[in-house]
C-alpha cells in the first residue's frame, strides 16, 4: 500500500497571519511532521488565485494545500470569505480539468493551532503518497493556456 520510495512534492499556499504563524508555533513547540511540503507565504488566502494552483501542478507538484484563517477570523475582515467563494468554483474547474480532488486540500489553521497544522500536513502527505506521483499535468498544460 505504502510507497516507500515515492516522496511527493507538495506546495502549500498559506496566509501570513494564521497558518504561517501556526506553522511557526509547531516549530517553537518542536512538533515533528512530514518534510514534503513547501510553504509559500501570502498575506491572505484572499490573494490566492486559482491559476496559482494550476501553476503549481504544472510545475510538478503532486499535491497542493491551501490554508488560512478560520472563516470569520480573517485578519483582513473578508479576504478569506472571497477566497472561499472562489474555491467553490475552483473545485468545479479542477474536476473539469481532471485533477483528482484528493490532490488539493483546503483547511483552516489558526495561529494557535500548531498541532492542527502538523495533523493537516501529515494527513495530506499520506493521502498524496497513497495516490502516487501526479503525471497528468502535461495534459492539463496542453488543454489550458496558463498565462504568467
Amino acid at each position: 500500500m505504502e510507497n516507500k520510495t515515492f516522496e511527493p512534492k507538495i506546495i502549500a499556499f498559506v496566509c501570513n497571519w494564521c497558518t504561517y504563524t501556526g506553522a511557526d508555533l509547531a516549530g517553537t513547540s518542536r512538533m515533528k511532521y512530514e518534510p514534503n511540503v513547501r510553504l509559500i507565504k501570502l498575506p491572505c488566502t484572499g490573494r490566492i488565485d486559482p491559476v496559482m494552483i494550476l501553476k503549481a501542478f504544472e510545475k510538478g507538484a503532486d499535491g497542493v494545500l491551501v490554508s488560512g484563517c478560520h472563516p470569520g477570523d480573517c485578519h483582513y475582515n473578508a479576504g478569506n470569505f472571497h477566497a472561499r467563494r472562489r474555491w467553490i468554483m475552483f473545485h468545479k474547474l479542477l474536476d473539469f480539468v481532471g485533477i483528482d480532488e484528493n490532490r488539493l486540500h483546503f483547511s483552516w489553521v489558526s495561529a494557535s493551532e500548531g498541532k492542527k497544522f502538523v495533523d493537516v500536513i501529515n494527513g495530506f502527505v499520506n493521502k498524496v503518497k497513497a495516490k502516487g506521483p501526479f503525471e497528468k499535468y502535461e495534459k492539463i498544460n496542453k488543454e489550458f493556456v496558463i498565462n504568467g
Partner: protein
Amino acid sequence: MSHQTTNHTRTMTDDIKDITSQNPDICYQCGKCSAGCPVRNYMDEAPNLIVRYIQLGLYDKAVNSSTIWLCAGCLTCTTRCPKNFELAAFMDALREIALKKGIKIKEKAILKFHKAFLKQIKNHGRSYELGLIRDYKLTTGDLMADVDAAPDMLLKGKIGIFPHNIKGKESIKRIFEKTEVK
C-alpha cells in the same frame, strides 16, 4: 503508520497500546475512576493505581492484582474520566495479557466462570446454562454454589437442560482457534 518503533524492546505498554489504541500516559492520576468504581471496595488496588503501575513499568504489580479481575466492565470510569481514557478497555487488555502470560490469577473463580462460559459458546455457538453451571462447579469445586436457586430456575425453564447448537458451530470453533482462546 509512517513512523515505526524499531530499536527498543517491546513492553507491556506497547501491547496495551495495540489492543486498546490508547496511551496509558494520558492518565494524570486524578483518581476519579477509583472514586466512582462500584467494586472499588473489593479490589486490592485502586483502578487508577493499575494505570500508574503501567506508567512506571511495574507490570507485575498490575497483572497480579485482583483489581483487573474484579472490574465489572461497567464503564463508569470510562464515562467520567476527564482525560477520556478508556479504563474499562484498558482493564480488558490487562486481563488478556495476564492470560497470555500465564499469570496466576487471584480471582480464580471469576476466571473459571469466564472459561466455563466461553466453553459453551465454543462448543455450541450459544450459551448453555446447565453446561455452564456444571463446568463452573467442576472447575471451582464449589459444588454447593446456588443450590438454593437452581431448582427454582430449572422448574421455570430458565436453565436450558439441552444445549442449542447453531448451524455455524464450526465457524465459531474456528474463531476461537484463530483468536487463540483456549
